[in-house]
């Protein structure tokens, strides 16, 4: 059974067809890129997968189970985590709290446990605290644990966002333009980080990216989206030479 399937995904915003008959299958362990000009529908696809929007037609399945009708937090609990195009950390919370709160998807205690601080509550909080600190340590962010998220430099905020997604222990990690706004050095570091994460946590990664250096460097396979439709897919080399892709990005050549 494939790890993750998108079958005939179609979505309308009013009369506008934002995504049209999009298909994808992950067997597990892939690192797939999704590229396309601005407004092609890339982030919409991520939002459809995460349950922020419900697709007009089509279906998304993880491990054979459909995600139709689930709330985003339920999708997360099924093993899909993501980061955002424009960083969406919780700015007035500490880095550590940002990571801790992401543990809510599998909280095994409830309101009354919190009020009475039962042993179940204390054990869970201990575990969450340890796991959060572990993740920060692995990503070398432990020095910033008590810092407010908004006070971190941009590159580190990205890293915290990735850390926050990692504590969900996702089967599938969605990265929405992780290199946006980064300088050259930070991009190199990001490429290294994504490679390392994939191996370390045995992740399947699906990546939206504008920066060709990053995509071509990282992805084994790329899909190209234009006006909500997939116009090409293949290895980075195949994509680079594909006339439809060049047309979508640069426009048609005049005769």
């Amino acid at each position: 059974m494939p790890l993750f399937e998108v079958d005939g995904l179609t979505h309308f915003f009013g009369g506008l067809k934002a995504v049209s008959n999009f298909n994808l299958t992950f067997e597990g362990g892939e690192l797939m890129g999704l590229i396309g000009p601005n407004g092609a529908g890339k982030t919409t696809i991520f939002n459809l997968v995460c349950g922020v929007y419900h697709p007009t037609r089509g279906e998304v399945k993880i491990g054979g189970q459909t995600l139709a009708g689930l709330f985003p937090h339920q999708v997360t609990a099924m093993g899909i985590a993501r980061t955002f195009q424009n960083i969406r950390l919780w700015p007035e919370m500490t880095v550590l709290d940002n990571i801790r709160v992401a543990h809510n998807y599998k909280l095994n205690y409830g309101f009354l446990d919190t009020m009475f601080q039962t042993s179940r509550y204390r054990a869970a909080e201990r575990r969450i605290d340890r796991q959060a600190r572990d993740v920060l340590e692995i990503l070398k962010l432990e020095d910033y644990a008590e810092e407010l998220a908004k006070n971190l430099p941009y590159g580190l905020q990205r890293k915290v966002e990735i850390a926050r997604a990692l504590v969900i222990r996702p089967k599938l990690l969605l990265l929405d333009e992780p290199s946006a706004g980064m300088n050259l050095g930070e991009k190199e570091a990001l490429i290294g980080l994504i490679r390392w994460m994939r191996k370390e946590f045995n992740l399947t990664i699906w990546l939206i990216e504008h920066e060709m250096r990053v995509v071509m460097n990282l992805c084994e396979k790329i899909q190209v989206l234009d006006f909500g439709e997939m116009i090409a897919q293949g290895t980075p080399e195949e994509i680079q030479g594909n006339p439809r892709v060049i047309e979508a990005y640069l426009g048609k050549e005049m005769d």
Partner: protein
Amino acid sequence: MTKHSLAILAGIFFVLAVGLSWTGGLSSYSQLVLMFIGINIMMSSSLNLVNGYMGEFSCGHAGFMAVGAYVTSLITVWFFTKGSVFGPNLLPPAWATVFFPFILLFGGLIAALVGLLVAIPSFRTRGDYLAIITLAVNYIVKSAIENIQAIGGARGFMGMGRVVNGMQEVADLPWMMIWTWVFVFLTILLIKRFVSSTYGKGIIAIREDEIAAEILGVNTRRAKMVAFMLSSGLAGMAGGLFAHILGYINPGSFTIMKSTEALVMVYLGGMGSLSGSVLSAVLFTLILEILRPLQLYKWVVVPLILILLMLFRTEGLLGHRELTDVFPRLRRIFGPREEIHAAL
């Protein structure tokens, strides 16, 4: 040691307040002010949960207070006093001593259920629109009470004084002072526990970025429901205490004015700051009492103080921070910010 110093201080304060009330060291006026401080602490810190920590704008807090006040009063008067409305008492008046805290909790529970009236619309709407819904709930509660003649309607409801007298006949203690401050400490403890848990921090994440919170696994609907219900439940208990301190309530006590007072205290103390809420409730109550000789001019001076404060400290006295963050030396006495995690 540092971990318990706050509890020890609270204990000393409690013993002093109750002791002095009992021996007559505090005049009955001072006792009343002290109890109102307690009520206001409950109101401001519970409203802070929604307005400060969760970042919604609820401006109908007095509505929940009214529900708690009427539910607890009706039960105590029905059970423990002879009256024209409910007939003979069902239980001996002395039993009120034992049952009172449970009746208060029950009043809070009903207020929490009424809180659902706000919580459920909050799934789909927020900001100004939700604020209007909270305002509407305040008016609905007030008008409903006004129009139920069986419980006095607009004339109000009384008889709680006899319930308290019944308690005093069992043991001559300042019962309302005791229960007010017990419930104040309970309120602070519950809110502190809630917002320092991973579970409760979900509502702070909702304030900071609701979509990110939902996508990263926070069940935002449940979190909002819990926060609104906890907040309105605590306000309901404050209302129950308020009713039994005064011995008389009428719907006019729970208008938008009362909600505004709670709002002022939250913003005065600083949103998302529990110690700020406590501090501002104390200050606000005292300032209003101190300025009482000014009579009508009080209502010029108090808003003026607020305007000046908001001009120079837009985030309130302690915006998003606790006392220990502003005065780090206090940490030596009260322990570190993440007291709970250090303790684990």
